[in-house]
């Protein structure tokens, strides 16, 4: 039985060593190069005395970054991807919660790392891949590794303003990759076009299946997602046949009439998720790619990538939503109502997840972990954890699971999961802001920030851009004389939403 994700790499390098594994505009690496370099990195990191600890990978979006992930696993440590796209304030928070002893940089990021007040060791990718690998040492590390050892930490938005680091292990990733690739029907002819950032768990969909099947992943330059024709050109040029994108990336193509000029010729498998797909846009995709398979994926980072899937097999009306379907094999979904009981067929309940796919929890945060990774209330006989997603769902007449809404102020925006509370906490850090509240326009996909304080909108925007990732920066900022309050003295979000809608309709 496979116990380590690196076995994917070790098996495939024997089969197709010279095939391209990962490529971007400027560089490409074969499976042999991925294997050699990650073992060199693993040897180096371990020889520096790092073991069973987080190693931060602070690199741009290119094949070398992926190889570094594997290198960190070879060393017996776990990788924590961060990226220059993440603003300084957030990187500082992440480094603060990890307290890492080692950071691996590339030639671009090595000059910026000193800005974060980080005082540990810094290693340069180009240098450490030159390390001669130490076979005995690597074998010794492997002997001691078990499948519940962590392999990565990725950070997700936290309502208190501090991002939470989700820790995943070999076992949950292997469970995910086996079942995902089965559903997507990945094989050696698969050519992935990667869109999602390498610092979120979404990229697992391309990274590990590429190793398992000897497929190829092209990293698509981010700038192409502004220019739909160039994007389709890239897909055709690289003969990309499989994509797992956020919905907003797909609609960039369909919304501007791109299909009338150019169609992705090789695409046959289109997985999407993280957001509701507007049916009008979805119909365009299906019209121009009638033979492609469309698969909706759903799942929280806390349960390793995705947990549920639905392959579209019927037409949808404009007011319908595409179901999230059913759980992957070896994953179970339980709906729980307010009393922790299972609701009647067709009634709404919180989506709770059971299975090997559960991650280990939040790093250095037992309190938050224990709030959502809890004993299954339906089982009073032995310890059994479930993860409470905070998402509300129900089963439709076809027995398919459907997402209904969130229990709290978490939203999905541009494929990212965001706590509106985190934006508010950051806005309130600005000394001149007396009060701040965020609402989300789900139809227009806009985050709106209302604030009270003697400071211009431009200054607020400038401040937030330094502190928050781009996708969390409000799309609209409004100054108020006073914040509307509920009788309990809380900010009245409902009233703000009404005010916003009134203003938009004028």
């Amino acid at each position, binding site marked *: 039985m496979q116990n380590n994700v690196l076995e994917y790499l070790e098996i495939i390098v024997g089969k197709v060593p010279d095939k391209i594994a990962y490529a971007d505009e400027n560089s490409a690496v074969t499976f042999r190069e991925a294997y050699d370099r990650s073992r060199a990195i693993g040897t180096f990191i371990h020889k520096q005395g790092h073991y069973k600890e987080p190693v931060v990978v602070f690199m741009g979006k290119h094949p070398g970054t992926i190889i570094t992930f594997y290198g960190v696993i070879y060393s017996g440590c776990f990788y924590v991807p961060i990226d220059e796209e993440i603003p300084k304030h957030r990187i500082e928070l992440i480094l603060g919660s990890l307290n890492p002893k080692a950071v691996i940089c590339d030639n671009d990021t090595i000059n910026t790392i000193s800005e974060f007040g980080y005082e540990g060791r810094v290693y340069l990718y180009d240098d450490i891949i030159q390390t001669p690998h130490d076979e005995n040492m690597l074998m010794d590390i492997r002997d001691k590794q078990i499948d519940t050892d962590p392999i990565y930490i990725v950070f997700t938005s936290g309502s208190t303003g501090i991002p939470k680091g989700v820790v995943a292990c070999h076992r949950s990733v292997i469970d995910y990759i086996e079942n995902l690739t089965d559903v997507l029907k990945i094989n050696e002819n698969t050519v992935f076009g990667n869109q999602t950032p390498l610092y979120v768990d979404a990229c697992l969909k391309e990274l590990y299946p590429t190793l398992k099947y000897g497929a190829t992943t092209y990293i698509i330059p981010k*700038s192409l997602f*502004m220019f739909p*024709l160039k994007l389709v050109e890239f897909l055709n040029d690289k003969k990309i046949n499989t994509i797992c994108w956020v919905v907003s990336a797909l609609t*960039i193509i369909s919304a*501007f009439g791109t299909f009338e000029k150019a169609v992705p010729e090789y695409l046959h498998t289109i997985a999407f998720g993280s957001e509701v797909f507007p049916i009008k846009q979805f119909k365009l995709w299906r019209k121009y790619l009638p033979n492609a398979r469309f698969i909706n994926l759903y799942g929280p980072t806390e349960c390793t990538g995705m947990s549920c899937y639905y392959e579209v097999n019927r037409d949808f009306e404009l007011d319908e939503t595409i179901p999230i379907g059913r759980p992957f094999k070896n994953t179970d979904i339980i709906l729980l109502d307010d009393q922790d009981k299972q609701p009647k067929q067709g009634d709404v309940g919180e989506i709770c997840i059971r299975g090997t796919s559960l991650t280990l929890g939040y790093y250095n945060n037992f309190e938050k972990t224990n709030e959502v990774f809890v004993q299954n209330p339906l089982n009073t006989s032995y310890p059994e954890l479930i993860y409470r997603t905070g998402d509300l769902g129900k089963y439709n007449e076809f027995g398919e699971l459907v997402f209904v809404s969130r229990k709290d102020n978490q939203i999905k925006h541009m494929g990212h999961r965001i706590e509106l509370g985190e934006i508010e906490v950051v806005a309130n850090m600005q000394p001149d802001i007396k009060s701040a509240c965020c609402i989300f326009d789900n139809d227009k996909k806009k985050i709106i920030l209302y604030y009270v304080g003697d400071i211009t909108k431009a200054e*607020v925007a400038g401040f937030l851009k330094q502190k928050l990732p*781009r996708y969390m920066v409000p*799309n609209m900022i409004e100054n108020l004389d006073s914040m509307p309050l509920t009788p309990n003295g809380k900010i009245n979000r409902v009233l703000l939403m009404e005010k916003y809608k009134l203003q938009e309709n004028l």
Partner: protein
Amino acid sequence: MDKIIEILEGMHPEVDFNTCNTLIDDKIIDSFDIVTLISELSEEFDISIPVEEIIPENFNSAKAIHALIERLLEDE
């Protein structure tokens, strides 16, 4: 032109759009903005921007966007 600047400032109030001519090159406008921008321009000027015009050169400055809109309005 004022209307275009107003739309752009709605998205990035801290940028001086009268002078900036590297909106794309310096990643001031990114894929998060382009959808909003195009839909607001289309609504404001009652035009539809064909996909072949959605290229970096047409969005690098308020002036370039203005020229694009003028051109599209003339063609109608």
